[in-house]
C-alpha cells in the first residue's frame, strides 16, 4: 500500500475528478448527467483517495459522522423541499406552482426544484457510495 506512482498520479487527478463530479451535479438540468451520476463520480474520487493513501486518510477527509450527516440530510432535504409544496397550498414536490423560481432556461441557476434536488441527491450519493466502499473493504 505504499506505491509512489499511485500516490503522485492520484494527487494530480483527484482534483479534476472532483471538479468534474461537481460540474455533472450542478449542470444536471442542462447537460447529460444529474445527481446520481455526479455523486458517483465524486465518490470515485474519494475511493481513489482511499486506495492511494489508505483508509485513515479518507477517514480524516470524510469522517463517518459527516458521511452519515450527508446521507440522512439528503433524504431530509428532499422531503423538506417536497413539503414546501404542501405548505404553499400546492402538491407534494410541486415545482413552479409551489413558488420555486424557474429562472431563464439554460442558465446555471434555473429549473427551480430540479436544481435543488440534484444538488441534494449528488451530495447524498457521494457520501453513500463512499460509505458502501468503506464498509465492504476488508479492514486489514
Amino acid at each position: 500500500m505504499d506505491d509512489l506512482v499511485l500516490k503522485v498520479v492520484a494527487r494530480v487527478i483527484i482534483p479534476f475528478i472532483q471538479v468534474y463530479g461537481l460540474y455533472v451535479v450542478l449542470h444536471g438540468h442542462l447537460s447529460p448527467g444529474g445527481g446520481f451520476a455526479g455523486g458517483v463520480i465524486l465518490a470515485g474520487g474519494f475511493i481513489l483517495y482511499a486506495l492511494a493513501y489508505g483508509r485513515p486518510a479518507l477517514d480524516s477527509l470524510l469522517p463517518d459522522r459527516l458521511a452519515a450527516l450527508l446521507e440522512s440530510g439528503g433524504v431530509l432535504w428532499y422531503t423538506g423541499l417536497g413539503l414546501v409544496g404542501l405548505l404553499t397550498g400546492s402538491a407534494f414536490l410541486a415545482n413552479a406552482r409551489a413558488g420555486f423560481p424557474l429562472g431563464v432556461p439554460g442558465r446555471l441557476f434555473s429549473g427551480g426544484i430540479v436544481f435543488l434536488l440534484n444538488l441534494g441527491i449528488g451530495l447524498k450519493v457521494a457520501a453513500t457510495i463512499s460509505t458502501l466502499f468503506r464498509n465492504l473493504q476488508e479492514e486489514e
Partner: protein
Amino acid sequence: MQNLEYIAAMLLYVTGLGIMLFHSNLIKKIIGMNIMETAVFLIFIAAGYVRGGQPPIALPGEPLLLPVNPLPQALILTGLVVSVSITAYALALLREIYRHFGTLDAAEIARRKGELT
C-alpha cells in the same frame, strides 16, 4: 435482423439466469443477477432509441428534430440505483455468511445448516 438489440438483451438475460442456476458459489450468483438486471435495462433503453436521433436536450429556441425517448432513460436511472443498493446489501450479507460458515458455496452452507438443526 432489425431487432438485434432486443435479441441480445434476451440472450443476456438467459445467460444471467444460467449463471445463477449453474454455479453454487454465491458471489457468482450475484454476478448472474447483475447480468440479468443489465439485460432488462438494455431492453428498456433500446425501446426508447430512435435511429439517428439526438439527445433530448434543447433550449426553447433550439431545434429538436428527432429526440430519443427520455422516459425509459429516466426509469432506468431509478433501476440502476436500486440495482446498486441490492448488490451492496447482498455483498454485505455474503461477508457475514462467510464469517459464520467459512465458505460461500450454497450447497455446502445448506449441508452445514442441516447438521446444525
